């Protein structure tokens, strides 16, 4: 048998290994050649060719030997190279005289031969002397110039000019004269080395072409004229990698229009295109635009009024200064930053459990409000922990890098999950500060930009040193957990200390056996034994299985089940009621050798699932004398009891709800899959009322086994009844250890004694008060709500930071070790910077860095104007868009740095410009010439972002809370949005003003976005998202019209209009319109609205109850409006519902 098995295993192995070879591309170099080299080349090399056959090169193999060609492409059956390996005749079989090759190796050869293109024509002869112009240049020209010539040379490699070609590209030299084998040009055209074959996405070079290139390189790669080439072959560096210089401000014709230098750049371009700027926006439009841009909130009617009245020169500037000083400025500008920083309140991935990160969010708001300079803002977030004696706020700032997702799925490889975290940190940093798609270089050199794969991992190395705890979850899963800090307030800290002392003291009391307790335990042990013996077993007389199982009564009064085993079987057991009153029923499930794996259940594992049990008592013995015995809960000594059958808590309203659908109820589940669990189990069911028993009464038990899985009946069981003061007293002791009670104390092992002692201590009424007090203290401890923050912390080390490269980006293929550094295309790290996160942060905000400042001012610009000067605000590389106003971008970038990275200075500069203050009306001529408003001949006009739409609706309706910061909140959300596997975390709606907080405070769960946020294009925050796409969909329409959160805003707005908007419908309509748009409604609007209102209120008056449904319950906010009639309130609610959805109301214009 053993031998047979081994032989068969050979077959299995063969079958399992062979396909691997088949699946891999049968590559001569990597797969076939090594086999030949080891087994064949010793006798068949070019130097020593037995049978004139050499097998040490592809050419030689094709040439063949005395027996003819050894390789017939596509036909292993005709190819000697394969046939001679498998031929039965030992005198012919190769390797000559030796053992046959392993089958899997033979399979490789076979598959390789079969994989050769049968139709391939015989190769054309290759000239012995290569002439560059005749032989090589045409190959390069038709295959390589497309991407590697002139100014567009990918990876900065040119193959159209000798000097440049021999110098190589970003990845270094590609041609090593004299060494074709060591030349990357050859590797790449052959697709070797794990990199993509060249030419990309085009037919590969044929063998002859490759051979010509090889021969040319081996002969010294002579490129006529290369040595005399001029320096103009130097590549022009992509614009964004060159440091910005402040350009001269252009002169313009309409000089009086310009308010600052920004305008001169914009105007110069407009004049060049023959366009003129728009007139200044109306006062109302200006204050609304400014308020939305600087605080994210609409101006109040009073603010609009004051601004309209102020006709001083400085009115506008004063407004700008007031708004920049508002604490809501920080909230507004934190919003885009949090997208970029992929801030969220959950871990992401499958489980997506909540995390506590809001301290970081509040840090961002606060830092912006304090106008922290952007270099400091950068350094604290990337490396606050590395600053000397970091302040608590600086540690919180490092939460930036902790915003990465964290995969807690059971089967993940923890090291790989951690690698993914680091990759995200690299990609986010490069995108956010450098506007670079460094991420593309994770698997290979960047196709278009000057980043090599090596440089990717050099950048990665900056992050490759965090400390983490290794946590084991369950028995098969491991996770890396990075550092968090507790941030208790002083009061919380004091309470915590106090509580912890009390807990420690009480724990000691509840786990120490005093002499008195020892005596009590001995009494308890005796009682336990006696109690168990008091139960009277029911003699089963009538046995029936509706599913056709065979049921047999056993001498010990148990019932053994065998035979058929149907899904949904029902057992009915009847017998005489034992003498005496009783108030509880006992069901024992017993193991039995005849059952699967020894029982006690009947499924394949010996488990059972009891879904229902009914108990009936018949005092008369007559057929109609059965009375159900009621019970509400059950207790078992082990095994699972469904929640709703567990002992009802003190507060019945907290009892678990019984599921509605049958089949999901699992009264008692016993898992006997493991040997140590295959023991007797007991279920005690206390009856609702004591049964005053009579003689000759009978009992009937009906068991239902309708688990969704089926075939899970009990295999052997016994029933009993008893009159007990504490019926489930016996379940205190687990079945597995009950027999230890029979041992004398001196005969017990320490382990056994400990088990009994702790069972007693955790059950004895003598310690009841202490146990309760302990529970209460623990609850109080967790109720303290001490905030935590996730922070960065590096492993202390003097070693230079390094990381292994990952071949093709695969975590499983570590490559060469590289050391932390920045890509070569940029200026190097400053002399005094240590190559760690802090050094990196300082480098990012050094004035030599060509990108950071440009990238940041561009994003500010984008937030104001809808599109950046570089439209692809996430990509400043060669594939990104070119700047629409390159000089302006550089001017702004230099200005930002020169201002000392002063954010508010830049904001003010932009909003003070005439460009910003233009009317946004879309004139046909401008639409025709510049549909996307890239040239800015008008002011910006685009739909507001998701959070702003919410904030404006709440602000206009008067609901908005002005509270700043704090834990994330849970405003109204429809049922069923948080429907995440393996997580029972519920969305519990916030109360009071927390329902009406600004959108930025809504809890962000990555896998289950808050509906209106997702619908209005807020990103999921899974990864860094620089640019939100703006869509315009019917789902948004439904959201704005029907989302109860928005409809509540309509109701509140109606109430406010009635309260504050005067008494005439026309006045009220105008007031509502003003609250949303900051301007008075034009006559045409007012005519429509009031006419509509009059018609609608008339209808509502006729309809009676409908009006009440529409305006809803008069919540506190409505109180003052409750004087209004119901139809009035409802009609205004409908008007408000319409106004809140106006294009103008959700658009910044």
């Amino acid at each position, binding site marked *: 048998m053993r031998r047979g098995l081994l032989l*068969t*295993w050979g077959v*299995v192995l063969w*079958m399992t*290994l*062979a396909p691997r070879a088949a*699946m891999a591309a049968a590559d001569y170099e990597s797969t076939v050649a090594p086999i030949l080299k080891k087994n064949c080349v010793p006798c068949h090399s070019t130097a020593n060719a037995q049978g004139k056959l050499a097998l040490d090169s592809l050419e030689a193999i094709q040439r063949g030997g005395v027996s003819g060609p050894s390789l017939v492409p596509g036909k292993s059956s005709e190819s000697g190279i394969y046939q001679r390996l498998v031929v039965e005749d030992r005198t012919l079989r190769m390797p000559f005289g030796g053992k046959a090759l392993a089958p899997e190796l033979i399979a490789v050869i076979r598959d390789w031969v079969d994989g050769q293109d049968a139709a391939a024509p015989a190769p054309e002869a290759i000239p012995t002397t290569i002439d560059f112009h005749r032989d090589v240049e045409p190959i390069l020209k038709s295959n390589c110039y497309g991407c590697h010539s002139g100014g567009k040379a990918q990876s900065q490699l040119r193959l159209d000019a000798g000097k440049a070609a021999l110098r190589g590209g970003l990845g270094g030299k590609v041609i090593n004269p004299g060494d074709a084998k060591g030349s990357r040009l050859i590797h790449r055209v052959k697709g070797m080395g794990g990199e993509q074959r060249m030419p990309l996405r085009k037919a590969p070079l044929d063998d002859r072409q490759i051979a010509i290139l090889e021969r040319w390189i081996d002969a010294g790669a002579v490129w006529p004229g290369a040595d005399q080439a001029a320096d103009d072959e130097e590549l022009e560096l992509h614009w964004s990698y060159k440091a910005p210089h402040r350009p001269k401000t252009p002169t313009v014709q309409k000089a009086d229009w310009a308010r600052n230098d920004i305008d001169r750049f914009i105007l110069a371009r407009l004049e060049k295109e023959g366009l003129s700027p728009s007139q200044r926006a109306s006062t109302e439009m200006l204050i609304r635009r400014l308020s939305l841009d600087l605080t994210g909130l609409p101006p109040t009617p009073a603010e609009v009024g004051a601004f309209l009245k102020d006709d001083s020169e400085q009115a506008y500037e004063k407004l700008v200064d007031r708004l920049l000083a508002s604490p809501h400025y920080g909230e507004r500008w934190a919003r885009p930053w949090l997208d970029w920083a992929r801030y969220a309140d959950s871990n992401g991935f*499958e489980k997506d459990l909540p995390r506590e990160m809001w301290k970081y969010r509040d840090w961002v708001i606060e830092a912006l409000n304090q106008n922290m300079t952007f270099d400091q803002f950068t350094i604290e977030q990337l490396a606050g922990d590395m600053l000397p004696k970091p302040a608590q706020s600086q540690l919180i700032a490092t939460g930036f890098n902790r915003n990465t997702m964290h*995969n807690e*799925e059971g089967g*993940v490889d923890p090291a790989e999950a951690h690698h993914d975290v680091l990759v995200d940190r690299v990609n986010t940093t490069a995108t956010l500060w450098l506007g670079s798609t460094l*991420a*593309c270089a994770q698997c290979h050199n960047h196709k278009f*930009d000057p980043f090599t794969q090596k440089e990717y991992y050099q950048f990665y190395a900056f992050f490759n040193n965090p400390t983490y705890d290794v946590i084991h979850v*369950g*028995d*098969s899963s491991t996770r890396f957990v990075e550092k968090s800090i507790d941030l208790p307030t002083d009061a919380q800290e004091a309470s915590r200390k106090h509580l912890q002392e009390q807990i420690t003291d009480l724990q000691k009391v509840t786990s120490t056996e005093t002499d008195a307790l020892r005596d009590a335990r001995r009494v308890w042990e005796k009682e336990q034994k006696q109690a168990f013996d008091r139960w009277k077993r029911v003699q089963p007389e009538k046995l029936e299985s509706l599913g056709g199982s065979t049921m047999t009564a056993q001498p010990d009064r148990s019932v053994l089940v065998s035979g058929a085993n149907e899904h949904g079987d029902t057992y009915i057991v009847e017998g005489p009621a034992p003498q005496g009153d009783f108030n509880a029923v006992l069901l024992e499930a017993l193991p039995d050798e005849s059952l699967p794996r020894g029982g006690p259940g009947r499924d*394949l594992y010996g488990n059972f699932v009891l879904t229902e049990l009914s108990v009936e008592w018949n005092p008369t013995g007559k057929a109609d004398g059965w009375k159900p015995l009621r019970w509400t809960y059950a207790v078992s000594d082990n095994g699972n009891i469904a929640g709703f059958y567990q002992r009802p808590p003190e507060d019945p309203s907290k009892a678990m709800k019984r599921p509605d659908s049958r089949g999901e109820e699992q009264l008692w*589940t016993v898992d006997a*899959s493991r040997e140590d669990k295959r023991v007797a189990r007991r279920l005690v069911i206390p009856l609702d009322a004591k049964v005053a028993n009579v003689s000759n009464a009978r009992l009937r038990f009906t068991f239902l086994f309708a*688990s*969704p*899985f*089926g075939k899970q009946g009990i295999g052997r069981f016994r029933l009993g009844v008893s009159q007990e003061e504490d019926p489930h007293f016996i379940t205190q002791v687990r079945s597995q250890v009950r027999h230890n009670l029979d041992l004398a104390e001196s005969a017990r092992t320490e382990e056994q004694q400990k088990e009994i002692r702790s069972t007693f201590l955790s059950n004895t009424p003598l310690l009841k008060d202490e146990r309760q007090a302990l529970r209460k203290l623990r609850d109080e401890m967790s109720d303290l709500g001490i905030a935590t923050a996730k922070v960065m912390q590096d492993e202390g080390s003097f070693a230079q930071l390094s990381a292994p490269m990952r071949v093709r980006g695969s975590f499983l293929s570590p490559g060469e070790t590289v050391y932390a550094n920045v890509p070569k295309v940029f200026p190097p790290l400053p002399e005094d910077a240590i190559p760690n996160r802090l050094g990196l942060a300082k480098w990012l905000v050094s004035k030599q860095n060509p990108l950071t400042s440009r990238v940041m001012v561009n994003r500010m610009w984008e937030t104001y104007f809808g599109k950046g000067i570089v439209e692809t605000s996430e990509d400043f590389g*060669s*594939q990104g868009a070119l700047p629409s106003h390159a000089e302006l971008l550089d001017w702004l970038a230099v200005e930002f740095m020169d201002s000392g990275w002063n954010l508010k200075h830049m904001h003010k500069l932009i909003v003070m410009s005439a460009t910003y203050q233009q009317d*946004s*009306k879309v*004139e*046909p*001529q401008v*639409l025709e010439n510049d549909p996307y408003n890239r040239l800015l001949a008008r002011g910006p*006009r685009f739909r507001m972002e998701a959070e702003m739409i919410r904030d404006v609706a709440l602000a206009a309706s008067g609901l908005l809370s002005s509270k700043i910061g704090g834990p994330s909140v849970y405003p109204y959300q429809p049922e069923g949005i948080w*429907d995440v*596997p393996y997580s029972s975390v519920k969305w519990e709606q916030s109360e009071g003003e927390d329902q009406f907080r600004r959108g930025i405070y809504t809890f962000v769960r990555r896998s289950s976005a808050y509906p209106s946020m997702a*619908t209005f*294009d807020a990103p*999921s925050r*899974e990864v860094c998202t620089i640019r939100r*796409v703006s*869509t*315009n*969909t*019917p*789902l948004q*329409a*439904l959201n704005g*019209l*029907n989302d*109860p959160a928005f409809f509540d805003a309509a109701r509140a707005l109606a109430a406010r209009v009635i309260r504050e908007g005067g008494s005439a419908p026309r006045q009220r309509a105008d007031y509502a319109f003003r609250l949303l748009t900051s301007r008075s409604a034009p006559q045409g609007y007012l005519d429509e609205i009031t006419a509509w209102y009059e018609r609608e209120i008339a209808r509502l008056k006729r309809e009676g109850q*409908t*009006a009440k449904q*529409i305006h809803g319950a008069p919540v506190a906010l409505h109180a003052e409006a409750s004087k209004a009639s119901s139809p009035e309130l409802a009609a205004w609610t*409908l*008007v408000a519902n*319409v*106004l809140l*959805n*106006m*294009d103008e109301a959700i658009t910044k214009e």
Partner: protein
Amino acid sequence: MKKDLGKGSSMQDRARNEALRAMTRRHFFGQTAQFGLGTAALAALGNPELFASTAASHGPHHKPKAKSIIFLFMAGAPSQLDMFDHKPMLNQYDGQPVPEEVTKGERFAFIKGTPRLLGSPHTFQRYGQSGAELSNLVPHTARIADDIAIVKSLWTTQFNHAPAQIFMNSGHQIPGRPSMGSWLQYGLGSENADLPGFVVLLSGKNQPDGGKSCWGSGFLPTVYQGVEFRREGDPVLFLSDPEGIDRERRRRTLDLLKNLNEQHLAEAGDPEIATRINSYELAYRMQSSVPELTDISGEPDNIREMYGVTPGKPSFANNCLLARRMVERGVRFVQLYHRGWDTHGSSNNEDIVNKLSWLCRETDRAAAALVQDLKQRGLLDSTIVVWGGEFGRTPMNEARGGSKFLGRDHHPRAFTMWMAGGGIKPGVTVGKTDDIGYNIVEDPYSVHDLHATLMHLMGIDHKRLTYKFQGREFRLTDVHGELIHKIMA
């Protein structure tokens, strides 16, 4: 300027309308799209040819074989070795340790140490003219054996649920790329102006592990993402009008809204306002078309019986019936998720004995009924039904933490899916695994190959449907994907 945007009288109006059309064309796939191609919305702009001119730049690239796909996604990974891929040798050597050479260097999600082979506790039989071999767990699929193509040789690169599901949907394991449904929407648009073109229906417990990223639009505009029809409450979020607002009242409020927006369009001149007006009109139509779609009370008893639908109870069967109703109405891509197939055997209720049987009872009948129902209506020719999960399961018993329940770990090297319908060859079984079902020995197909094939049947050349993002042209199949000719009719 009011209402009739196409017939402005003044010079200025005409100029504006022309500009507006040009703008909309250019903008089409950027900001202003409706669901897919929103034909009705565009007709309102007075330029019905727009549909054709825009669509041509994306797809179809050739004559399509099918118009719709229904993807029955068995989230959690069904055990191919207990349902489709019969391996007698596993039963023969049940309980024997697997030779180290087979598993050396392999990573498993949960298996530790040397695992032991696990024979299937289920029985297999051949069915139909085609002689497809299926287990007793799928008696209804057995009835349609001659209508389906079974592929036993798919493989994937991912061995955990969330990444593998995201990979199966978007061709990449990390969230952020568009899902297949989004690509198809982007490439082909919608056939129904009143319904979303990409709908997702969930059954079983919770949503799939990959979360909403499974039907996300990635870097494509969100207009292309799958619209999740909910099991309870409004099928589409916020579809119902608030209390007290009936259809007529909603129409009146929308008339007022339209009127105000049109006045503002005349003031501000931004064509985006016209698009907004249309999106509200489409929303209004959806409020009727979606409830009509999801109301199955008009379906005859024999059809409900055929699927096994219990009226009023959300179920996989219910969703299968809805899927048919959707493709009847021109929905491009319907994806049904049924979750719970993760039968590791770490407990009584997630094993291949109890749980797998249960899941098959929940899904087998309705999946088969869907194929039969489409066939009897002549819809199977233009619809592709795909059945499968994100990866397969190991030939070895997992025995996590020494568990005695029978179950299999995640196995990316080989798994089975079946397909039926437009352009799919019926009654074939393709691909082969080795004697223990560990590796593929014939016709290995990657997830990219599956994507390429499905796109091809829908008239899309997977290499040509691309979208430029962050400096790169992206496509569903990344740089991979070969057609699975053996299952193509």
